[in-house]
């Protein structure tokens, strides 16, 4: 059911934001970021879904005749989702690398103690 996808995707985004606001451990903060990304990815891939559609790949006969014999789901959102997954993975990797550096320099990964810049 496609409606469930939309509801769940916004629940995931909200959960991610909740984690960002409440969790003091910086690793968990990065995980919250990841959850938010997955919610958005689910939203995009659902946007391209057609009821009863197949993968958007032409067979040779379809290609020669130029008319698809089957019904496709939209290919563009899938490409967007792949891009977005790659970007999300990069964000998480980079954020985790920075958390390691914070641990080295500050000796803690508690958000309440990592706040020398303020005021």
């Amino acid at each position, binding site marked *: 059911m496609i409606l469930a996808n939309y509801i769940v995707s916004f629940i995931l*985004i909200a959960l991610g*934001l909740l984690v960002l606001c409440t969790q003091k451990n910086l690793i968990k903060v990065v995980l919250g*970021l990841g959850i938010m990304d997955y*919610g958005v990815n689910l939203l995009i891939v659902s*946007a391209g879904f057609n009821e009863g559609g197949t993968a958007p790949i032409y067979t040779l006969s379809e290609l020669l005749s130029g008319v698809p014999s089957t019904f496709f789901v939209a290919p563009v*959102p899938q490409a967007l989702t792949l891009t977005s997954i790659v970007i999300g993975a990069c*964000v998480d990797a*980079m954020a985790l690398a920075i958390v390691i550096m914070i641990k080295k320099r500050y000796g803690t990964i508690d*958000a309440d103690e990592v706040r020398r810049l303020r*005021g």
Partner: protein
Amino acid sequence: MNMIQHFPVLAVMTLFLGAFLIEILGRNQIVRNALAFAAVSISMVLLICLIRPVLLEGQVISYWMGGWKPVANYAIGIGYEVDALGLTFALLGITAYWLSCVYSFGYMKGKQHLGHYYTLFLMLAGASVGFFLTGDIFNMFIMMEIVTFSAVALTASNTEKTTAIEGAFKYLINCSIGSSMTLAGIALIYLNCHTLNLAQLATILPGNVNLTTLMAFALILIGFCVESAMIPFHASFVDAHTVAPSSVSMILSGMVLKLGVYGLIRISYIVFRAIDTSSLQILLTAFGTVTMFIGVTMALAQHDFKRLLAFHSVSQLGYIIAAAGLCTSLGLTGSLYHAINHTLFKGLLFLCAGAVIHATGTSDLDALGGLSKRMPKTCICFLIGAFSISGLPPFNGFVSKWMIYQAAYAKAVTTGNFYYAVVTVTALVVSVMTLASFVKVLHSVFFGQLKKEHESVHEAPGIMLFPMYIMSALCVLTGIFYKAFSTVFIGPAVFAAFNNTTYIDSMMGEGYAELFGVPALAIDKLEFSYWNPFVWFVLFVIVFAAACVVIFSSTGTRGRTLKSGGSYDSVYGTGDLSVDFMGRTYETGDPEEKYAVFFSGEKAEYSHAGGSDLFWGFKYNWHKYYQFLQGLHSGSVNDYSAYAVICIAVICMFMFLFMR
């Protein structure tokens, strides 16, 4: 199909190619610098070649990646589309990158891992220019993400500050919230319109409001508000600008924030055309007004040179967004003019801060003083930048700020809404406070007494002074030749924002815009009568001279209380003693509770407000306000996320209540 069509995409590709080549060949310093300089210069030349067709002849250049042109009126491929609005921002961007690149040769000399520095620098440049030139909304998101990555890595690369890594982390989290919101908005747009091309969206979306597109608009607007450091989102940007290397701070503060401004103008003027609804105008101007006021009052309380400049950036961005939200041609002209000016003068000020840090090794205002004798050239450049940002004639800040006051007041008159009069008055007051804040910086960094440990400092090397001279010259030139400048650069950009028929036709084929009946916003003619800088210059010189006399004579007697056994002749700027308004002194480390509000900046290096603080009385009277605000700037990444979430909820609710 002529040659010029390939220039936009080549300008972006040169920068990315340069980034990869430096990573491969950049072991040697000469090769590395030559590659970086060549990439930025070639890209700049390519963009300058576009001035004649786009800005002077009014063409719109379109380019389809891989030749994937629209089929059956549906855009499938990724297109680059250069109109006057995008090109003005791109030219501004590449100028800033060119100057910052030259400055880096001097400033970053002798640092570790410079190959990676220039790789990231060129990726940042390529992504920013690509963001301004692209005609695809998903591509805009990708460019935004590349900008975030490179900016975060460049911020974290400052090995001299232990806090750099913390600033980078907050910046990453904050920007990721913004870009996730943008991406969700883009998904909703695709769901509704089945296209991602900006030109085609501009034919479908205006006047076609349903709940999905409204939600999409709200989310994308939030994304760009985050990118342009509007008030609840600004805190982590300020942190990152403070700790980044100065050559990068200049780019982050002067250029990267403009991505959000460009995105807001592009989305609200061209793609959704929602700017002519009065509720959106009120939302944007309210955002801008609150931002400019809080930004400047926070800046007054800062004791770190770069942190103070970063808060001023937030304040100036408030001007730009508020003026863009007025939806009059004068307002948008003022907004774009101020956006360009802000890059010039804020870049200049950050470069001056960099020169001071390069010479003395500190950016703490209380530890500096009297540098005008040792660094006269930096001091002159800083004066020009400070006068520009404060809006003194004949510098450029005066022209754009004057346009903004006038546009806001004209809006108040035409709509009869008292609210816009409040905006005008706030803008004027904020400008005065900006000047006050820079008088304080001048007083504590360049004038006053030279510190013993800084007696041997030298002027910055020539390669660092050169970009500062160019920026100072540009600040003066854009202030004096305002008419020519706004006719060539700003006028076409404003026209492109209000009238998008050419934009759509050039991308989707002739007559496409007419086919869908795209409405054009009404555009009124500009008048250049009221802001002749020279007339005001005479007045301001008199007023400023009078103000200087009052300020510098009064500080001679204020708080001159010497603690017995103190090793300083005067307590100005020592930071060791805390002097209250009545002249009593307190031991360091045992401050009275009511003075705790004056601590600011980095906790590791905080200091009391010393006798050098010119605005002691003002801050004392406002201490409740400052206590509240500095409590909000708690430095915790959770708190900053919470403000962002609250603001997201408020904007979405506002949209659903007032814009349906």
